[in-house]
């Protein structure tokens, strides 16, 4: 550390050496004189040459530093935000979830919020002081939101003291799109930094910044003198401009040649740019820490990183700490070396007092404050790698990499921090628990949570270790989907005049193939179940009945349905095995398949981005919710009803047990050959989630949809409130009491009968009285 600011020993070479002095040669006599003349000419020539070379060198490094500087000034990565939390009266919300949301958005818990970015949550009351934020619909100034919770709902809401029905928090910043391995920066104009920070940094790092031309000779001399007299290299004497140059090249190499170059470049920058521009870039550029593989640059980012608050909200002692860190971000790392950092901070506070920036008494008072650094970074640049991957892929359709990395776009995404956290926990802990309990190993997962109505992707997990970037299984692991396809086989049948009580045979089946082979799929339990209603065949996931039903229309309509959703190539020739899910899809693709069901037949694209704004807050691109009518939509409510029956008495009957509550959730399990893949899809009115569990090497894992993916799904939804499906509000259905055995309409409350929906005009024709009604009453 101490040697970092060693003064350059031969810094004064610059001008003296670059001036040739050829006239100093005087003519002598005869041969020796001629020789002398020639040697003098040679010397002059050499001097001229080296001076010329020196000039070219100086010119080239000056140009180089200006290009670099210019690039850094404008090279601003795009910032990515989660969806903002909207609050409204009547909204279902638990105190714990609100706290999680606020923490994710970097809010600070205090007793009484007095500035933006703070909140208090006591019992059933919360006060939130929001931050100014530019949304797609305009700038929302900082507001004080008061809310009251009652029975896990918002019962009262106030904005700036006025009763209101609606409020919106500024969203959590979840990352930035920078070059791979690039630095993490957040760029603000100089005026946006607190004055104490701006003057303080000059007072500590470069007192004569306003007056020097890039090099502070007085400071240098003083530093040299002190170093000599103390016998150690303690003082640096680098100006802010020189530090700026060092930061641009990210080098700690301190040999004299570099030092010389640094000074030349500093002078070049000073000649070209105003003090304002240099200081502004410095404030945004200075190296202040490390997170993951990235440097934390600039005071704005560092403020969020260490204190979890915007730089405007920093208090004097926090400002002093950040300025102290400039000298050595790892040496004075407040999270690692608290005591050292505290001393450094106090030294800075003293120098604030000495230079009159703070009164002596104020400085004394600030000295008594603790460091107040958050234990975990208020912001981690490498969080949510799977989701960020989806954001990047979606944006690439409209923007090139350069625009994303350098133009400081503001990207409003659909990420719901609480849902994401639940999904991550379910992935890591859920899989570990499964492996422990059942002796499985090497399992991996891909998960997605979406709002089926808007297509918003709320959470995405691509690895059981959610912070590991790399293979994104939610998007790229394409696996056979097995029984997950079955609802669509039944959908086609229902759209073709069948109803849920229509009968189908579950006897053994053999399909002759074009190549002469016979395909003979078997039921999972290897038994035949005779004539069964479609409803039973679907909720018990019978293979034989499904193939028999599907072969009435053949695999082509199913292939057409998948093609329409762009889940099957145009030229694919469908094999009958498609009826049992012999098609490879990613979890995201399965989600887009089921989105159609969950949104009652109104298809919309699954999207991770809502709006893209430019750095000034102007809207550039909107991704509106576009609805497309699905051809078989009339039959979809029947399928949704049937799938709620799957989780009641079908293959997913254990779901309620796993969730620990009564529920009405549409669900489907899926298991592929040799138990390689385990799928579970479940949806409510406002949530759709897909879980895949399997092995990366696609080896048999001994897992089924109900034993692996379903518990993970349930773990994710155990603590989040969801709007269960109200089957009686499903559009376009008429309800009848139906005898389960015969499928005939019967009298209400008849034992062995239940309420089953039918499409109008397609009700079962046979009616019979309830034989046991009298007895049971």
């Amino acid at each position, binding site marked *: 550390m101490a040697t970092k600011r060693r003064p350059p020993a031969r810094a004064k070479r610059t001008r003296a050496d670059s001036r040739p002095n050829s006239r100093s040669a005087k003519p002598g006599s005869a041969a020796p004189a001629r020789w002398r003349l020639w040697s003098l000419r040679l010397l002059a020539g050499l001097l001229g040459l080296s001076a010329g070379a020196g000039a070219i060198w100086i010119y080239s490094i000056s140009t180089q530093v200006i290009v670099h500087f210019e690039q850094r000034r404008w090279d601003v990565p795009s910032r990515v935000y989660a969806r903002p939390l909207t609050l409204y009266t009547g909204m279902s919300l638990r105190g714990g979830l609100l706290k999680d949301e606020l923490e994710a958005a970097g809010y600070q818990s205090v007793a009484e919020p007095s500035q933006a970015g703070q909140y208090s949550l006591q019992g059933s009351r919360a006060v939130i002081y929001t931050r100014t934020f530019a949304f797609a*619909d305009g700038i929302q100034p900082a507001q004080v939101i008061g809310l009251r919770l009652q029975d896990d709902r918002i019962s009262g809401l106030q904005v700036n003291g006025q009763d209101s029905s609606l409020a919106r928090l500024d969203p959590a910043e979840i990352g930035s799109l920078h070059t791979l391995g690039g630095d993490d920066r957040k760029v603000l104009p100089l005026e946006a930094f607190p004055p104490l920070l701006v003057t303080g940094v000059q007072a500590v790092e470069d007192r004569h910044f306003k007056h020097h031309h890039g090099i502070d000779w007085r400071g240098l001399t003083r530093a040299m003198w002190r170093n000599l007299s103390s016998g150690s290299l303690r003082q640096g004497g680098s100006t802010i401009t020189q530090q700026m140059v060092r930061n641009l090249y990210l080098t700690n190499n301190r040999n004299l040649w570099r030092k010389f170059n640094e000074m030349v470049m500093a002078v070049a920058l000073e000649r070209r740019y105003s003090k304002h521009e240099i200081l502004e870039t410095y404030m945004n550029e200075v190296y202040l820490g490390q997170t993951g593989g990235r440097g934390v640059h600039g005071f704005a980012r560092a403020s969020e990183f260490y204190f979890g608050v915007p730089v405007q909200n920093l208090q004097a002692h926090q400002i002093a700490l950040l300025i102290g860190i400039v000298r050595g971000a790892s040496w004075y790392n407040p999270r690692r070396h608290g005591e050292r950092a505290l001393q450094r901070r106090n030294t800075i506070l003293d120098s604030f007092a000495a230079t009159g920036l703070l009164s002596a008494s104020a400085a004394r008072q600030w000295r008594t404050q603790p460091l107040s650094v958050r234990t975990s970074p208020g912001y981690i640049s490498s969080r949510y790698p799977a989701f960020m991957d989806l954001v990047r892929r979606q944006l690439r359709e409209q923007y090139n990499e350069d625009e994303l990395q350098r133009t400081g776009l503001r990207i409003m995404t659909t990420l719901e921090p609480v849902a994401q956290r639940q999904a991550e926990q379910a992935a890591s802990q859920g899989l570990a628990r499964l492996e422990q309990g059942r002796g499985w190993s090497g399992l991996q997962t891909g998960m997605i949570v979406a709002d089926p109505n808007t297509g918003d992707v709320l959470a995405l997990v691509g690895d059981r270790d959610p912070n590991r970037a790399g293979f994104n299984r939610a998007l790229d692991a394409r696996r056979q989907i097995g029984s997950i396809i079955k609802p669509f086989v039944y959908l086609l049948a229902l759209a073709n005049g069948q109803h849920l009580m229509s009968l189908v045979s579950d006897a053994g089946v053999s399909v002759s193939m074009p190549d002469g082979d016979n395909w003979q799929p078997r039921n999972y339990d290897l038994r035949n179940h005779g004539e069964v209603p479609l409803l039973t065949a679907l909720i018990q996931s019978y293979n034989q009945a499904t193939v028999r039903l599907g072969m009435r229309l053949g695999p082509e309509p199913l292939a057409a349905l998948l093609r329409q959703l762009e889940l099957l190539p145009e030229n694919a020739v469908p094999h009958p095995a498609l009826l049992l899910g012999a098609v490879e899809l990613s979890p995201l693709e399965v989600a887009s398949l089921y989105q159609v069901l969950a949104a009652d037949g109104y298809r919309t694209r699954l999207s991770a981005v809502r709006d893209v704004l430019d750095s000034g807050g102007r809207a550039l691109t909107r991704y509106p919710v576009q609805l497309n009518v699905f051809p078989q939509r009339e039959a979809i409510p029947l399928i949704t009803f049937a799938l709620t029956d799957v989780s009641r008495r079908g293959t997913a009957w254990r779901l309620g047990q796993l969730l620990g509550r009564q529920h009405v959730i549409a669900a489907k399990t899926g298991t592929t050959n040799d138990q390689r893949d385990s799928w579970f899809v479940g949806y409510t009115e406002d949530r759709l989630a897909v879980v895949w569990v399997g092995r990366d090497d696609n080896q048999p894992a001994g897992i089924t949809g109900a034993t692996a993916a379903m518990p993970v799904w349930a773990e994710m939804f155990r603590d989040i409130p969801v709007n269960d499906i109200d089957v009686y509000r499903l559009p376009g259905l008429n309800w009848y009491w139906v005898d389960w055995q015969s499928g005939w309409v019967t009298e209400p409350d008849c034992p062995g009968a239940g309420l089953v929906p039918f499409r109008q005009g397609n009700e079962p024709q046979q009616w019979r009285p309830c034989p046991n009604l009298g007895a049971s009453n």
Partner: protein
Amino acid sequence: MINEQAANIVMKLSLTKLCRVSLATLPLLLLLACSTQAPVPIQERSVDIEQEIRQPAVVEGAGLQVRPLQNPGVRELVSQAEQAEQNGDLNQASIFLERALRIQPRDPELLQSIAEIKLQQESYEQALNYASRSYDVGPKVGELCSRNWRTISVSREFLDDYAGSEEARQRAAGCALRKPETF
């Protein structure tokens, strides 16, 4: 040309609606005028939401207003959207409505409001689909039903489905009489 069109529209309106609709229409026309894209065939007529959808629906719905209780947050956003629409800022209106959609995605009134904005934005297919979704989850009688089918009718007309448009017009007329067939 643009002024003539604006003048025609304005003349058709009753005095009470004059300010409101001209304000709403002018920026749209100006926007069209400023567009730098290749010239598109000018529609022979433009849609007047008040005249073609909302007002006749009140009559056609025979006073039958089936309004499911709207979430207060949604109501607030819908009224902000109405304000934006009156100011002629359809884009802003649709942002407000989409925010409301994220609160209550199956609110039939809200879905129809979005459909009417889409219609004014000349996004006919989306207008059709939103109106259809509104009908699916809506009361299927009364004023909202009539607005659903009128929007569908006008959208189909612009999409050159004249038979479908006529059929939808008749469905609109039936909204007061009985609970029509589903779908």
